[in-house]
């Protein structure tokens, strides 16, 4: 225990040793300097004139957004349906692709370590690229539309579902697997009767969770042309029709709340 002595020779308790204390000071100094350096770079690239009148701009924005132009909601039902389709079909497609990838990536079910690292590579690259970037790529390849959105969501979901699912596979009980292999079952049969029943609840939970996230993400995919309500959002922003934008925001807010509620209910029922 770090103890120092007063001039009378009495021991005094301290939280850290002298060395640890100094190291801590130096770490703080380095961290704060790094932060200030970054702050300076941002501040150099900022037009402070625009920041100074942010309050006025914000008030102006709010005054333009209210009252919402409720009539515009009638135009939005079809884009909203498209958005839901992008999220749901994208999730379904993503799950279908993630399922085999997860089995290849889990340490206890992979056929070969080399295949495992390839599967992990797929998962990592899918996870590190945002669905909006996937959508940008796919819009240039497939052309604007719902299809690009569906595939973008699917590609992004592979990494998420794959990662959580392979972690679930690695955490299964080995006993049922051993019991079924002992009956002389083939590799596929062991997967089917030993592994699959153990991961099914986790799998359903992960899928619903990802669906909920995808609903949020699909609302903005239209900003890069990949269909859904984001297209209308982009159009309204470009024409500075802020009263329409607020209607869109309210619809997005409501949809996200409902999807979150459904996902929470389903996950609660499973667990």
């Amino acid at each position, binding site marked *: 225990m770090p103890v120092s002595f007063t001039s009378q020779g009495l021991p005094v308790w301290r939280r850290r040793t002298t060395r640890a204390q100094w190291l801590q000071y130096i770490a703080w100094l380095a961290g704060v300097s*790094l*932060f200030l350096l*970054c*702050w300076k*770079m*941002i*501040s150099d*690239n*900022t*037009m402070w*004139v*625009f*920041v100074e009148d*942010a309050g006025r*701009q*914000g008030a102006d*924005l709010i005054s333009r957004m209210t009252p919402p132009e409720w009539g515009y909601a009638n135009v939005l039902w079809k884009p909203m*349906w*498209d958005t839901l*389709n992008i999220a*749901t*079909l994208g999730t379904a497609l993503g799950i279908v692709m993630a399922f085999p990838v997860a089995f290849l990536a889990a340490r206890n079910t992979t056929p070969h370590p080399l295949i495992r690292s390839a599967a992990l590579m797929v998962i*990592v*690259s899918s*996870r*590190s*690229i*945002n669905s*909006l*970037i996937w959508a*940008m*790529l796919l819009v*240039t*390849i*497939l*052309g604007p*539309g*719902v*299809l690009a959105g*569906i595939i973008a969501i699917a590609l992004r979901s592979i990494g998420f579902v794959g990662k959580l699912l392979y972690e679930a596979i690695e955490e299964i009980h080995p006993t049922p697997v051993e019991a079924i292999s002992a009956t002389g079952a083939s590799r596929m049969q062991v997967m089917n*009767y030993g592994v699959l*029943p153990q991961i*099914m*609840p986790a799998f*359903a939970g992960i899928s619903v969770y990802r669906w909920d996230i995808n609903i*949020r*993400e699909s*609302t*903005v995919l239209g*900003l*890069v042309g990949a269909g859904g309500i984001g297209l209308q*959002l982009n159009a309204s*922003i470009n024409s500075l029709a802020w009263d329409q934008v607020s209607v869109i*925001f309210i619809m*997005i*807010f409501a949809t*996200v*709340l409902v999807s979150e509620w459904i996902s929470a209910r389903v996950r609660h029922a499973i667990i």
Partner: protein
Amino acid sequence: MSEQLEAPLTQMKAQARQQAAQRGEWRRLPLIESARLRWGLAIGAVIYLFLALASVEVNWARVSEGAGRAVNFLGAFMQPDFISRYDDIVAGLLESLTMTLTSTVLGVLLAIPVGLGAARNISPLPIYFVCRAIIAVSRTFQEIIIAILFVVMFGFGPFAGMITLAFATIGFMAKLLAEDIEDLDWRQVEAVRATGASWWQTMNHAVQPQVMPRLIGLSMYRLDINFRESSVIGIVGAGGIGATLNTSLSRYEYDTSAAILLIIIAIVLLCEYSSSHVRRWTQ
């Protein structure tokens, strides 16, 4: 009452299953127990799929035209071009990284008071509701939607991006921090309080040591998320590598886009690796 009834019922079901198995009619347990719900969900899914697929319009001519571009793009991944737009890439990356760091620091600093306020066991009810409302607003909207609003308010550039990411960080960190505080070991708080400690001293010596490892781990995780997000909010003008990527894609310079994507993947991998290292070290 219902629990008492259920126990013999499940026992009866188990016996029925065993008898069926002895007759050679074994079937595995379904995931959803109620047959009506199971079939209802399946039929609903089929009807939905039919309706949804019917409403998806695909321009196959455009898709086949794009196939050539897809091949070009895959080819570009084999030969990424880091050189010809070197300056733009470096400037964009620096902007993204500085935005990531400052926004995480600001966001975490602001999230701590909000998180303390949103923990039901240490804050009074009015403060609890205010803090929960802040969390709900910050979590519902996508970063990019918030970025649109902040770009209008603060002008184009990394400042708007930083504010956006900091705002999103508040909701994320405060929610997880509040949950962590809500299930902390209450005996330590009582022990510190029993010595006559003030509110600040209780926080500092009873609450903080318990949540600190997780707080550091979450901050590292959020740093990672903020970098990923900073690579897209450039699309709406909030600075960072996203703007460079968007420009290169619309100029059909796929080799530059491939280079940027590879850099993003590499940095995310590095972040993930170091954050798992830091988490192991703090726990």
